[in-house]
């Protein structure tokens, strides 16, 4: 029983060992065995074997490889060419390679004709294409912050299969794998027939490993190519961007500062426009408060037509045009304002109140030429400036100081040096004249003939008149230039009556020097006349002349009017 059992066990073992096909089960380490047959391009293939632990050299040399194509015929052929470059390899060239046919390969020993190993396959099943070559990569796009980028990896087909690829005999598809360095997990991508792969969403500052392998579609993969390592450093574009922004902001700020500083005045005006003072027609209250009536009178004492600097095209100022087409009309009509009679301190319509507000803030030097006759007691029907209005002159005679004799021709103006509290005019040349008169009436008169003409009841006089009747002597001219006309509210006729003449010699002497234009009024309340100014620009403006006793008769006007 035991022996039978032992025999049965042995048989079972024998059967078990025999049932194992030699091609599947690994051989014992001592036996030579086939390691594998593989093809690269579906045209040729090679088979390799190992000698194992075979010690006997002769047996090693006797190893032969036999193959058969058709199992039914069992025609065994020996290896067409044993490889010379490598030991234990048999190479089947294209003529000996039949695709889609089953091969049977056996490893035999010559002398005892022992079959060490056997293998059967179809050539297309043992195709293991070579790995692609020439891997290179290109950055496809980079994120704005430089952290994420896309990449394209391209390669070339394996050189061994290149020719077959061109003829269409073999078709290779590729697979790409990539992973972060240090990671064990590969990311696989099937690229198909394309020899490039797009990899998206890679991080910068991370090293990646990429490798590619190829296979014949439907069959086996080849070995992987050599890995390439890709590392894109993070350019840290954030910092430069912020620095650039900071510098830009600083630069813009500096430029703005420079602009503001350079154009401070204009900017101040733009952003903080000057607030105009109260627009009061006729009077600058500041000057009134200061008591500088001289400022007023110096300006107001002149004919409105002879105050070019005071005139302006300020739209604020009401300006009523005076109709001067009819010289025959009464003179009071010429300059009579259209405004109704009122005691209100209305501004002279003939004046141009061009600086009612400005004088107080911006141009302090500019005299306020507004009408100051607010408190004129006379209820005149006109509020215009009538240098020689005979109608309204009324009781008040213009305090015209002029020599009575006809020889008196030129210097009819004198400078009012001061106005007393009573309203009396203190004339500097008058004093001289008076002194001269006192000394020598006639002589002085002839020489120094000055006239302070205050034809109007308000005490205004015309510079034009003054210029017309003034003598062109140096002294007188100088005084004439400095002649000032004041608005005298209450002129006492005491001073003037002495030298008052009933007639203005200018009327008899039309050849007196031309009129001059008042250039400005200086701080001394004296008129600064423009030198050698022709009378032409003013001829049209001036229409009236001082009449005898302050009145201008129409017939006189005819003689005078140019």
């Amino acid at each position, binding site marked *: 029983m035991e022996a039978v059992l032992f025999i049965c066990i042995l048989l079972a073992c024998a059967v078990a060992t025999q049932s194992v*096909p030699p*091609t*599947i089960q690994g051989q014992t380490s001592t036996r030579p065995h086939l390691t594998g047959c593989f093809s690269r391009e*579906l*045209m040729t293939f090679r088979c390799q074997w190992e000698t194992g632990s075979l010690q006997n050299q002769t047996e090693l040399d006797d190893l032969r490889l036999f193959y058969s194509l058709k*199992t039914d015929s069992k025609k065994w052929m020996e290896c067409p060419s044993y490889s010379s470059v490598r030991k234990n390899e048999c190479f089947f060239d*294209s*003529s000996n*390679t*039949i*695709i*889609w*046919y*089953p091969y*049977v390969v056996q490893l035999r020993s010559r002398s005892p004709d022992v079959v060490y190993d056997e293998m*059967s*396959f*179809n050539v*297309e099943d043992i195709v293991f294409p070579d790995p692609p070559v020439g891997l290179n990569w290109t950055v496809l796009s980079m994120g704005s912050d430089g952290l994420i980028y896309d990449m394209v990896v391209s390669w070339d087909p394996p050189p061994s299969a290149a020719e*077959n*690829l*061109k*003829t*269409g*005999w*073999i*078709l290779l598809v590729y697979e790409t794998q990539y992973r972060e360095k240090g990671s064990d997990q590969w990311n696989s991508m099937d690229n198909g*027939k394309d020899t490039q792969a797009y990899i998206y969403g890679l991080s910068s500052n991370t090293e990646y490993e990429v490798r590619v392998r190829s296979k014949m*579609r*439907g*069959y086996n993969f080849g070995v992987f190519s050599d890995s390439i390592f890709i590392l894109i450093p993070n350019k840290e574009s954030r910092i430069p961007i912020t620095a650039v922004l900071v510098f830009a902001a600083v630069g813009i700020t500096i430029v703005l500062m420079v602009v503001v500083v350079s154009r401070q005045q204009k900017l101040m005006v733009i952003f903080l426009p000057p607030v105009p003072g109260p627009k009061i027609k006729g009077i600058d209250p500041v000057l009134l408060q200061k008591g500088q009536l001289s400022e007023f009178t110096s300006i107001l004492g002149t004919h409105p037509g002879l105050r070019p600097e005071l005139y302006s095209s300020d739209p604020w100022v009401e300006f009523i045009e005076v109709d001067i087409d009819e010289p025959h009309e009464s003179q009071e009509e010429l300059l009579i304002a259209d405004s109704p009679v009122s005691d209100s301190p209305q501004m002279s319509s003939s004046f141009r109140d061009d600086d009612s507000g400005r004088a107080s803030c911006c141009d302090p030097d500019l005299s306020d030429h507004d009408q100051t006759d607010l408190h004129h007691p006379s209820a005149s029907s006109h509020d215009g400036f009538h240098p020689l209005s005979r109608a309204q002159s009324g009781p008040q005679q213009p305090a015209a100081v002029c020599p009575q004799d006809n020889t008196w021709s030129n210097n009819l103006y004198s400078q009012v040096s001061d106005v007393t509290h009573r309203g009396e005019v203190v004339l500097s040349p008058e004093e001289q004249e008076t002194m001269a008169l006192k000394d020598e009436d006639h002589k002085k008169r002839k020489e120094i003939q000055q006239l302070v003409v205050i034809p109007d009841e308000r005490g205004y006089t015309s510079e034009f008149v003054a210029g017309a009747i003034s003598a062109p002597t140096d002294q007188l001219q100088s005084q004439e230039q400095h002649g000032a006309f004041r608005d005298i509210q209450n002129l006492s006729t005491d001073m003037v009556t002495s030298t008052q003449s009933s007639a203005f010699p200018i009327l008899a002497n039309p050849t007196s020097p031309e009129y001059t234009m008042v250039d400005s009024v200086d701080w001394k309340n004296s008129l600064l006349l423009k030198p050698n100014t022709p009378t032409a620009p003013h001829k049209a403006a001036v229409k009236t002349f001082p009449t005898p006793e302050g009145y201008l008769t129409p017939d006189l006007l005819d003689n005078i009017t140019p």
Partner: protein
Amino acid sequence: MLQMKNKCPSFFLLALVLLSVVLVSLLVNQGRASDNQRLFNNVVVRVQHLHQLAAKMINDFDDNLLPEDRRLLSKTIPMSFCISDYIEAPTGKDEAQRSSSWELASQILSRTVSNSLTANQINEKLADLKMGISVLIKGCLDGQPNMDDNDSLPLPFEDFYLTTEDNDLTKNFRLLACFKKDMHKVETYLRVANCRRSLDSNCTL
């Protein structure tokens, strides 16, 4: 899988018929240009799809095999043949480029094509392939090639796979393997032919 027994040989026969006709037509008339080229590309693409389908089918089959069954199959399958082995067709690159033997194959196959088509995805694809190739033939060649030659080669067709002594598992596996191999064959032939007639030096279909 029994359906495969009927269809696998017919698949290959049909494909070879169409294939050889196409090749003949290509040889005779290579003047038709873009139209035929487009059709040819279409045919090649369809064959590639069929090959991929066959490969997937056999891979699925193989994945589901039990280890002992796999061992068994590996022992027996290499000794089996497909019906296409009996049809003379180019087996190497040089032969494929010459394409002189394909006409004979087409003539043989034209006589032996059997239609056992049933509603099946593969059958539909094969039908489309056949239609495409027939259109291509009409464009390339005037009429069909003469396939009325008598051939002495015995061609066991539909009974080939049924008469084997394999079990069902083996038969199914053989059918799938043969289908895949045949599709690969046809794809290779068509691709080579298309590349040869196209003027591109670098043919990567």
